[in-house]
């Protein structure tokens, strides 16, 4: 495959809890479904991991009405966490992932603390290597983001999840906050092994047409993603890295090789790719190949060395 130099391990320095990735490039939640769907498009084994669609305790139908709105250099979505629920995931989807040896993060979301606790317990029971806790979905009415915007609530929630789960615990943060440092610190102190950031920004897209003397309005309010949010993501990752010692998986508008270097410059330890998958379903493998070639060409023997060089120069 030629990507051996990209192998990297994320380590919680306090506990030595770790997650080894074939490459630091991970498919972001919501853009890869339950993973196996992408098989027709790319060789999934070229990916560091894939974060599953956000899974809740019970299945959710998602939102009715328009769910997608394209904006300049980005898009707004209001899918509303449509998913099959944890039990269907464990019974129908998980066996395929195991059989095909696809590395994944189980992305979980809940509306109450108990939801998250139960999900964490099930993940533990099924020996799932890593979970990504979604406390940052702007598209559901109850819970989720409520935990993600309050440092005390996030600390308590992380602590409870930690108690139920021994694997690699990632907390995914929302940028819709005044103090990302406080949230990152709360997650770290609650026992998170890693932070992933950022989830989507709150946004509203609206189209106004004037037809037959009448204004016709069409709008979608939801989470903004795509390359337009990259500067916000860079700022947030930089802030988080100043606040915590645990590794950070960066995401938000990554679409090209240069973006990887920019996020590494602010301390990213791995990356997630979201919206760019819609433009090019092979973007993750393309980026991995470009990164690997860059390292070969410039004599960086592994990803850590490259990371160190960018951060220290």
């Amino acid at each position: 495959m030629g990507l051996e130099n990209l192998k990297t391990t994320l380590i919680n320095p306090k506990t030595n809890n770790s997650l080894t990735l074939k490459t630091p490039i991970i498919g972001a939640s919501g853009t890869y479904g339950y993973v196996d769907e992408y098989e027709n498009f790319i060789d999934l084994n070229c990916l560091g991991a894939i974060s599953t669609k956000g899974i809740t305790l019970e299945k959710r139908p998602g939102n009715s009405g328009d769910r997608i709105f394209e904006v300049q250099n980005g898009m707004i979505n209001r899918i509303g966490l449509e998913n099959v629920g944890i039990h269907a995931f464990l019974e129908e989807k998980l066996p395929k992932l195991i059989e095909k040896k696809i590395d994944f993060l189980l992305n979980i979301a809940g509306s109450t603390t108990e939801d998250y606790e139960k999900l964490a317990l099930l993940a533990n029971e099924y020996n799932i290597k890593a979970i990504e806790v979604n406390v940052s979905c702007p598209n559901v009415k109850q819970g989720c983001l409520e935990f993600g915007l309050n440092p005390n609530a996030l600390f308590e929630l992380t602590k409870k999840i930690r108690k139920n789960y021994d694997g690699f615990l990632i907390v995914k943060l929302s940028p819709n906050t005044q103090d990302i440092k406080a949230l990152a610190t709360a997650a770290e102190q609650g026992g998170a092994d890693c932070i992933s950031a950022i989830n989507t920004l709150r946004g509203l897209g609206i189209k106004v047409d004037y037809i037959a003397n009448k204004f016709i309005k069409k709008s979608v309010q939801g989470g903004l993603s795509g390359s337009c949010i990259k500067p916000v993501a860079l700022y947030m990752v930089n802030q988080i890295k100043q606040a915590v010692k645990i590794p950070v998986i960066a995401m938000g508008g990554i679409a090209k090789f240069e973006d990887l270097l920019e996020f590494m410059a602010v301390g990213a330890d791995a990356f997630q790719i979201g919206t760019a998958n819609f433009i090019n379903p092979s973007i993750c493998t393309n980026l991995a190949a470009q990164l690997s070639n860059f390292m070969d060409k410039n004599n960086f023997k592994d990803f850590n060395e490259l990371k160190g060089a960018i951060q220290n120069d």
Partner: protein
Amino acid sequence: MAKIMNKKDYKGKITSIKNVALNTYEMKISSDLDNAMCGQFISILCPNKTLRRPFSIADFDKENKILTVLFKLRGEGTQYLKSLKENDTIQFMAPLGNTFKLENKNCLLVGAGIGIAPMLFLKKEMNKKGIKNYLISGFKEENEIIYGSDENVVGGSVLDNLEDLIKQKNIEVIYSCAPTIVLQKIAQLAQKLSIKSYIAMERVMACSIGVCRGCVIKIKKNNEIIYKSVCQDGPVFEGCEVVWD
């Protein structure tokens, strides 16, 4: 160099692009794609836009591997397509979505505006198989007509005399691609007359391969209402299963 594979992503060469009606273009693309069925669509990468643009397949020449799409200028995506010239390269995913189910019955095909695209492909396939069919298409103005139908309705609505036409021709199945409101009326008319309808739906799409769940519509299934994606479960649905909000 790592092996990069996207099994459904193609680079195609434009073999012709021509203006066929007001603001309407026909584009022929040559590529390695060797199979495409009527009802399916392709999703074209527009470098100036975040999302790809879906287009129904209007024809597929299997022998020469040439795909035809029709597009009407709507926004920046189609402006990009219009700017392309013969021999330019485009990137697209194909073939996507499900297909029209061909029934060997008395078929009525209904196109409205650019919705005629998949109907032309369907008509050709039906003719090949000797399935009796009649294509009626509606256009706002004379200069917007895309030719290839048995009958064109200009100015009024393609729905106006549809019921009479169905009875007069003993139609047993309707196929249609049109704006959602027209599809709704066709599906409801078909139900009223107790005949089957297959309709090709349109929605804004993000992934176009069934993972993001952005383009879903409500579908009746065993007394339950569920969401199905237009891009993967569709674009063709039976008219009676769609829930119209």
